[in-house]
């Protein structure tokens, strides 16, 4: 995740001015946020994200939840390791 696309920290004055509490395009915004977290967003999506992610509370919450779930999958889910016996067996079979 490029830090430059992270939602910036809000100041009280910002939030009082224009913070949205309802997102009318939540599914589309979620797709955009997922593309950004996956490193697959277009330039237009990145621009839209930077411009709007400090104004929409549901999108900010979505960003943090999507990032948290992705991080949990990457870091927490145990990765199965190939058993040594299988490794030996494969090498043995191709060397015959």
């Amino acid at each position, binding site marked *: 995740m490029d830090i430059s696309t992270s939602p910036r920290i809000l100041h009280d004055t910002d939030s009082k001015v224009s913070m949205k509490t309802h997102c009318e395009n939540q599914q589309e915004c979620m797709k955009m946020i997922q*593309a950004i977290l996956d490193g697959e967003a277009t330039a237009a999506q990145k621009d839209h994200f930077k411009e709007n992610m400090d104004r929409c509370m549901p999108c900010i919450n979505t960003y943090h*939840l999507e990032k948290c779930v992705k991080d*949990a999958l990457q870091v927490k889910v145990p*990765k199965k*390791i190939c058993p040594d016996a299988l490794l030996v067996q*494969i090498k043995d079979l191709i060397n015959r």
Partner: protein
Amino acid sequence: MLDETAPMTEEIFTPTQGYNEEDKHAVFNREFMPHINSMYNFAFRLTMDEDDANDLVQDTYLKAFRFINSFERGTNAKAWLFRILKNSFINDYRKRSKEPSKIDYQEVEATYNSEESAEVEHTSDLRVESVQDMIGDEVANALNSLPVDFRTVIVLCDIEGFTYEEMAKILDIPIGTVRSRLHRARNLLKDKLRDYASTMGYNTQV
């Protein structure tokens, strides 16, 4: 359901190289073997069984060696191997699986019917704190409970770090389908995590 019929063998295994025996073993050891743990993890997430994962990985590596002249040295070995493994899973493993009914076909059908259609409004009340409090096995259980096609895209993207383009090639589907399937899979996963958090008494109220 998984899924579309896997491509014909000829499509993947068209020989383009002419390695001698020494080159074959060099390519195999240097370019294929470093991915064996990722391959095993992928095979396990597909089959949910260690013995079946063993068989699937062994079949895939033997196939890769047999058709090594179809692989160009220095290209994306990991994606090539994953594609072979996925096709072996569909064409070979699934046909002889002792428990084909492990998959909930009705659930897969229901979710697929909505995959390309208008999005169902999804209002997840899953909290960041709940996910952060979960241990790895709890997240893994939620992942494992997804239908195999959805589990697959999450494993490829979030665990193995493939790009959408690589996933499209591995799965033989258009990039747009990768995006929509991933989106749907993540919504399903969040539903499972939310249900689990609720069951375990985590606070799910926003």
